[in-house]
């Protein structure tokens, strides 16, 4: 008698979990996106009306704001995380653990609580920043609260650790002797970065960037709490369709479009990343 493959058996619980918790709900959402507008069952005649409506009614705009916000957040986080990772990996010594812990700890606090904290900090008049400056120096300052900039700041604040830690892994893969050899051979700082450090740290940077991009694309609390809904992001638009508009099919179509956009970014990058190399660190 042929014995079952132990690999398949080991994988089975996760496979069942992923099927039930991930694949089936996504399929249900995809099916809803093909149902007639403002209907609540899955037995209608399939139609692409909702996709046509999504483009005709300007839903590209929330999708654009989400994509722009996610791209800007990823870029800013990468720029900020690179020097931080280098310092933590090579220069901070015994302080590295403490600093890493300080950056990691806020992740364990609810995102909404942290964003409300930031809102109180930025609030004009009696806010922490404006109030303190007024009390200490007698100077009244304005605020960026309820603007796109405030929302972007919130996105960077929330997602920075998701870029930093994978990048830290990547940076720690850079052998010091290669950097020293390049310097001995007369390479400039830029050349060392371009030829040695960036290629070697790229898998970590790519993983961090992907995590940041995907999470930022689906974020809405930053725009709600800090941005005063200065713009509508795609997750808000989806929520509006499902809730107040009672229009599940259009909400589902917008969800599918967002998933497709995410996949279009994630899969090409994932194909180029050697995750094993990071894991073997």
């Amino acid at each position: 008698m042929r014995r079952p493959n132990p690999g398949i058996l080991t994988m089975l619980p996760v496979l069942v979990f992923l099927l039930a918790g991930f694949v089936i709900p996504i399929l249900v959402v995809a099916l809803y996106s093909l149902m007639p507008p403002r209907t609540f069952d899955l037995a209608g005649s399939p139609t692409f009306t909702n996709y046509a409506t999504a483009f005709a009614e300007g839903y590209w705009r929330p999708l654009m704001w989400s994509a722009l916000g996610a791209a800007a957040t990823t870029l800013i986080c990468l720029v900020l995380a690179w020097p931080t990772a280098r310092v933590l990996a090579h220069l901070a010594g015994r302080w590295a653990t403490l600093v890493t812990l300080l950056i990691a700890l806020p992740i364990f606090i609810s995102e909404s609580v942290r964003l409300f904290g930031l809102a109180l900090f930025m609030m004009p008049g009696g806010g922490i920043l404006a109030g303190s400056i007024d009390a200490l120096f007698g100077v009244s300052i304005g605020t960026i609260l309820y603007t796109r900039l405030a929302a972007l700041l919130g996105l960077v604040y929330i997602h920075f650790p998701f870029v930093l830690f994978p990048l830290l892994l990547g940076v720690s893969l850079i052998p010091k002797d290669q950097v020293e050899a390049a310097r001995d051979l007369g390479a400039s700082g830029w050349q060392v970065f371009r030829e040695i450090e960036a290629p070697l740290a790229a898998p970590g940077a790519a993983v961090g960037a992907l995590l940041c991009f995907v999470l930022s694309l689906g974020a809405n609390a930053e725009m709600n709490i800090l941005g005063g809904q200065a713009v509508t992001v795609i997750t808000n638009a989806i929520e509006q369709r499902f809730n107040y508009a009672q229009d599940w099919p259009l909400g589902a179509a917008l969800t599918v479009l967002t998933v497709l956009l995410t996949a279009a970014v994630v899969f090409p990058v994932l194909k180029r990343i050697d995750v094993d190399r990071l894991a073997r660190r």
Partner: protein
Amino acid sequence: MRRDLKLRQLAARNPLRGRSSLQLAPTRRQFVAGLAASAGAAMFGCGPAREQGGELALLTWDAYADPRLLDLWRDRTGGSIRYEIHISDPTSVNRLRAGETAVWDFVNLNNPWARKELWPAGLIRDLPRERFEPLYGAMFEKFAPPYYWAMSEDGEHLLGVVQRFETFDFVVNSDVISPGLAKDEGWDLFNNPDFANRYGILAYEDWNVMDICMGAGIDPFGEKTGDDYTAFEATARRWINNARMITTDFAQLNLAVINGEIDAYFTGGTYSITSARLEGVDNLYAITPYRGPAGGKGGINWIELNSAVANPGSGEDVLDFLEWITEPEPAWIVANGNGNLQPVSQMAQPEVLSKFTTEQLAALQWDEFDERIENSVEFDIVPDYDRLYDIYAAAIRARG
């Protein structure tokens, strides 16, 4: 100094309590989780298995999740209660539609949903009239049985028990805008170009649609003409573009009023300000206009109806609960539910009214309560809401 103290107290409040933005603006993870649950329930025709044996499951606004109410019920009956607080009325209607009738025993929603959506869709069950109609006799006169919103369209079935009710229109800083002027000006206040960027919007979007109708001179609950839609769109775009901020969290708007960033916001009312007023911020003032386009009225009066979900697993205990919450002590707790003070229909009884302190009645602007109700029409489902909402949502998207 006193103002600073109040500001600090407000800032120190746990923003996650009550009907705050965490519930109203769920994070992406919560939203996706909810969506997946609804989708799964729709697919399989049921929700997760419900534990039986003296446990009641409430899908409710915050008042019925007050720990004092839950403890009192446990002391009285030995039964326990679990609950989930609504994100919005339509979201919970969605959830029941998606199969969660197997999960919940009790649902507490604003008045039109039971009569116009839940009962026709078979999502709630009717109550024995001989047992529950006498409860209406102990409420304010306007609820005299048969009360329109508590009955099915055919007038045969009693669909729930009325409890919390109030108007919900707009809020001003009474230090900047006198309440008398605001009531007189009504919704035109937000049409005034000088007022641009001086107000916020509490994004309870179905309410915003009704308010914009009022501002455009349209009865939100009447049939609309082509001109009405044009007027609605122009008003929606102007009001949304002129708003200083839009948020789902009234604590943020109250703080913005206190900070002087804005002088008013809609939609709002005692629901959104009593907590702050109880803490002494009495310049937050609920306004119901003296007049408006809804049959001459400009205010909107919501009435919560408590109903029994058509859950095959529900027993008699949900009926006992529906009756018990109208008793003086539970009714008083509901009025104070989770720190959010609101009037209840049982305040018609001196025994219930006497439980409220002078400060609480002042926070509720109780001296103006009859006037507010008198100047309001009862909340209803808006005809052609879908079209109006799409115009509103397009205006929101066009804001940035």
